[in-house]
């Protein structure tokens, strides 16, 4: 909210500079968002008299002038058509060398077609002024000021652009501060200066309002107070300059005296006001009622709006004349012929205005204020203040009495005042008297024994002791509270849980394998399922839907992380990154399989009866280029298993996962439980995502890894006896996997087996087609003796025999 400092000063003396004032506001919770010094953008521009105008020797459209701004004279070349020989003696704004203009232009000495020019004569436009306000200034030329204007006056002074305007960020709990009076009240408390709220003083020389209009409120819940005054003999015209300049400085255009008064009072008190032309109100009857469902009105902006039954309207005997708190209707609008005005000052229910304004899609200054909540006392003050201004500026006759429909006034809240507890929570030693002074300065009161604080009506946000504590703390300044570090309190050990440690281990391991971490959105488009080649009935398509997504592309919670990974690989591939290795640790979200349909969303205990969707953490790995292949990612997975001390895992071919290559994909099982999938991406999916054709991906279920992990280890002693290594080469059918051979070797090698390593696979001319040669080194060792050839030979014989029998291996 923008407020000129001069306006605040009408109600409280401010004897510190603006910077200090802003700091005080900011550190007490009324944050200053910006400060604008009026005229800040106009520098070194003065009123000056034209002494001489001569033609330019080389340019028909230019003229050479001699101008004085007080002492001496300067030569300025101008192209303005309204500067002629006849302009001699006229007073104009002169930007001297060194001047700065609102559009950022800086004036320096220069030559125009060979003639020296030491400044510029300015137009209204060049000074960034509203041409409407200076109707006598020339449209396309230099601004000719009145003849009696003294010369040598700084244009900022001439234009009275000397105010400072502060832009406040008012927190939603302080609607009372959305007003000049509210902010002035804060200043008064913080600067310890008296607060001068204008006192109401009315002549009221007309007939009683009750003879002119009646008001009936049909729904006090939605309209707790409705007050009105009537002004007769209205003379519509411009408001006085002081009022216009205050409105303008606050960012509101002056319209006419009546509209300006309603806006002025709204800014001053925070209470939105509305003026109706009473002659246009059928039967002089105001009814505050709920709108009929589907009721149509034409609002002041000439648009037809359809209302619903949760909204409130102000109606006359026939039809709605305003959407309560949001916008008036054209049928009761004040115009230049208006002679009798009804001023409305009312309170409308916050939620009602909020929903209504959303329903018809208009937010106004007024609706914004009602949404934040207004207090029932200011309603009357604002109404009377408007009437007082009417009398003050002679805009009409204020009728006697006011209409005031209110069912019950709120009681002032009382809160226990316990200085010791306040200091205890803050960690301070603020004396009780100081606390009392602070609260009194904010217009709180006390009962006789100072054991209870009485909250002023306008402070609807203050409800409990903690609110009182904040009042004291913010006046005291949070930054004056002595920092402490929980000495002796909340002594806990802390640290990561086992699961958190394991997750960090996984992350560090994958990083060390050369894969970089990515972050992607949790929601995806349902189209991703098509791109992933999933059949229509695939369970992954059953995803949690967002009711109000940012478009279809972000409309479901992902059930697979592969889509995001492939998108990332694709982005990099299409940006010509040659080789890319990525991973992500993030959740997928699976709808709860519990049938919760029968629990009503209105049920208070909904959160206890319904199961949330399940989130499952995934490690997703993806790569292409630079030799990245199935075996590399398999290696990464195994490195993770090794780090997590997962020893028992096996691979099964996967031929029917529609996203993966049917011949180059495996499922990983840990102790019989599916732990993940690795494979080359299916060529169709590669096409869909426009990835590199050798794109590989894997996902692992992090929870399965955690379940089978261990952080315990014992160092094994180093072997004391030498190992014996035997190589073995065999020819087998192509379809026989290394895994099968491994298993047989491990099974048959006996106690002395230590490890085996595949070192060669060969397919080619020298072999029968459909077969391959495969070679291993097998290492034997005993912990307590040097092995003899005989022992090893025996094991090897067993291995040979089993390989022959079970796989038909032909040993070479």
């Amino acid at each position, binding site marked *: 909210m923008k407020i000129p400092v001069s306006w605040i000063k009408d109600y409280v003396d401010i004897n510190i500079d603006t910077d200090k004032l802003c700091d005080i506001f900011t550190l007490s919770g009324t*944050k200053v968002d910006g400060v604008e010094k009026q005229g800040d953008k106009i520098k070194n521009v003065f009123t000056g008299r034209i002494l001489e105008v001569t033609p330019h020797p080389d340019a028909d459209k230019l003229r050479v002038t001699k101008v004085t701004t007080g002492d001496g004279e300067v030569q300025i070349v101008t192209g303005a058509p309204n500067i002629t020989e006849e302009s001699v003696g006229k007073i104009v704004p002169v930007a001297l060398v060194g001047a700065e203009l609102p559009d950022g232009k800086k004036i320096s000495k220069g030559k125009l077609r060979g003639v020296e020019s030491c400044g510029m004569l300015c137009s209204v436009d060049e000074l960034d002024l509203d041409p409407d306000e200076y109707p006598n200034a020339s449209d396309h030329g230099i601004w000719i000021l009145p003849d009696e204007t003294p010369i040598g006056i700084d244009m900022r002074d001439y234009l009275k652009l000397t105010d400072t305007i502060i832009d406040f960020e008012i927190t939603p709990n302080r609607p009372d501060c959305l007003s000049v009076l509210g902010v002035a009240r804060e200043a008064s408390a913080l600067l310890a200066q008296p607060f001068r709220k204008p006192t109401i003083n009315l002549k009221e020389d007309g007939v009683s309002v009750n003879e002119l209009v009646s008001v009936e409120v049909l729904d006090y819940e939605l309209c707790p107070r409705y007050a009105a005054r009537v002004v007769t003999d209205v003379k519509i015209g411009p408001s006085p300059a002081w009022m216009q300049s205050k409105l303008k400085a606050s960012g509101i255009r002056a319209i006419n005296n009546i509209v300006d008064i309603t806006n002025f009072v709204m800014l001053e008190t925070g209470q939105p006001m509305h003026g109706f032309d009473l002659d246009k109100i059928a039967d002089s009857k105001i009814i505050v009622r709920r709108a009929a469902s589907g009721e149509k009105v034409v609002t002041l902006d000439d648009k037809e709006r359809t209302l619903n039954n949760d909204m409130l309207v102000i109606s006359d005997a026939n039809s709605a004349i305003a959407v309560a708190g949001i916008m008036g209707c054209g049928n009761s609008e004040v115009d230049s012929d208006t002679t009798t005005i009804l001023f409305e000052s009312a309170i409308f229910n916050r939620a009602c205005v909020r929903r209504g304004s959303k329903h018809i899609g208009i937010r106004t200054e007024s609706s914004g204020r009602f949404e934040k909540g207004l207090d029932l006392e200011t309603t009357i003050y604002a109404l009377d203040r408007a009437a007082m201004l009417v009398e003050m500026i002679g805009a009409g006759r204020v009728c006697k009495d006011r209409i005031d429909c209110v069912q019950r006034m709120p009681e002032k809240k009382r809160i226990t005042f316990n200085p010791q507890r306040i200091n205890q929570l803050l960690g301070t030693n603020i004396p009780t008297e100081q606390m009392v002074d602070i609260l009194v300065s904010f217009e709180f009161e006390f009962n006789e024994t100072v054991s209870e604080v009485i909250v002023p009506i306008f402070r609807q946000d203050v409800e409990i002791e903690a609110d009182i504590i904040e009042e004291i703390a913010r006046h005291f300044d949070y930054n004056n509270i002595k920092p402490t570090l929980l000495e002796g309190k909340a002594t806990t050990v802390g640290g*990561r849980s086992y699961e958190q440690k394991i997750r960090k281990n996984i992350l560090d391991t994958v990083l060390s394998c*050369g894969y970089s971490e990515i972050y992607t959105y949790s929601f995806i488009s349902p189209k991703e399922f098509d791109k992933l080649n999933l059949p229509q009935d695939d369970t992954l398509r059953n995803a949690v839907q967002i009711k109000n997504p940012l478009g279809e592309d972000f409309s479901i919670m992902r059930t697979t992380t592969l889509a995001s990974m492939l998108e990332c690989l694709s982005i990099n591939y299409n940006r010509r990154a040659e080789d890319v290795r*990525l991973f992500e640790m993030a959740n997928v979200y699976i709808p709860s399989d519990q049938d919760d349909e029968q629990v009503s969303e209105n049920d208070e205990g909904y959160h206890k009866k319904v199961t949330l969707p399940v989130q499952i953490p995934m490690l997703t790995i993806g790569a292409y280029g630079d030799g990245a292949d199935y075996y590399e990612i398999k290696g990464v997975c195994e490195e993770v298993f090794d780090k997590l001390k997962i020893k028992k895992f096996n691979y099964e071919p996967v031929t029917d996962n529609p996203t993966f290559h049917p011949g180059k994909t495996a499922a990983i099982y840990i102790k019989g439980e599916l732990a993940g999938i690795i494979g080359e991406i299916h060529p169709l999916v590669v096409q869909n995502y426009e990835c590199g054709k050798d794109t590989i991906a894997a996902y692992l279920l992090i929870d399965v890894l955690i379940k089978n992990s261990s952080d315990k280890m014992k160092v094994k002693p180093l072997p004391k006896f030498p190992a014996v290594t035997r190589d073995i080469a065999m020819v087998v059918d192509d379809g026989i996997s290394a895994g099968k051979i491994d298993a047989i070797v491990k099974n048959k090698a006996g106690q002395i087996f230590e490890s085996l390593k595949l070192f060669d696979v060969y397919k080619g001319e020298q072999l029968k087609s459909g077969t391959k040669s495969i070679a291993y080194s097998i290492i034997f060792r005993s912990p307590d003796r040097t092995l003899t050839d005989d022992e090893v030979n025996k094991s090897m014989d067993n291995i040979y025999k089993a390989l022959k029998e079970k796989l038909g291996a032909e040993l070479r």
Partner: protein
Amino acid sequence: MLKDQLEQIREQAQDQIKNEVKNAQQLDEFRVKYLGKKGELTALLRGMSELSAEERPIIGQLANDVRSFLENKIQEAAQEFEKSAMADELKNDVIDITMPGKIKKLGKKHPLTSVTEEIEEVFISMGYEIAEGPEIEFDYYNFKALNTPEDHPARDLQDTFYINDRIVLRTQTSPVQIRVMENTKPPIKIICPGRVYRSDIADATHTPVFHQIEALVVDKGVTMGDLIGTLKLFAKKIFGENTNIRLRPHHFPFTEPSAEVDVSCWVCGGVGCRVCKQEGWIEILGAGMVHPNVLEMCGIDSKEYSGFAFGLGIERTAMGKYNIDDLRLLYENDIRFVSQF
């Protein structure tokens, strides 16, 4: 006689090895000349048998001395030649030290993880645990239990993603605090890092998915001074020893008193620059004393216990630390961006 000859051999040999033996081959010739089967010393010793019994041990001793003297000299020289031969060889064994290194690249940790871990470590060292909770959350935990009434502007459909009227994508990590408070007896000392959602269209400073980290402490006698002290320490550890903080009163539904916390600008140190919009301060945290209503909703007696909570955005912190000017880069994962970290 024989003694003189031995002495003479010693001198002669010493002289020769010093002045004439220049390489390994000459050294070998030298060895053969003196110690070989037909060498001078060997020849000389054959004459030993003609000596008297008294002379023999004396001459024998001398002969051995001379032999070992020669052997030492030969060994010394041999080592010398070996060394210089190696040095010659090394002189020609040269690599281009500026050719590219061959290390297998490590992967890069995402800046959001780096910042999260850094913050986690600070708090773990102060005895905090890490708490986690669901991202798809009941509105009860995301709003109601956090003292955010039904018609609060934060609950507007435009800010929150809804799954249904009662289930939302959490807009803050605060619901985790509620879940912990419901199930744990104080003392409670946790941080809650995690992914949160707001319905903002992505631009340079917003993404609909982002990350927060919040801290919560509840115990008897926890004060606002404790909150401020903790914030100060945290700011210094994350943004540097010279960092100052400034608290401004603010409003959050779940804390009272509440504050927004600024840290002194990490670029200019507080004098004002483009990054801090000339203010010298950068707003980074929301904080406050846990609202008594929130404690009570979780079954914690607010007369007996008090607590503080604060939270900050990971993205914002990362942007500050790494001078990132567009948030969207963090979610685009261009390898040229990722590999800079």
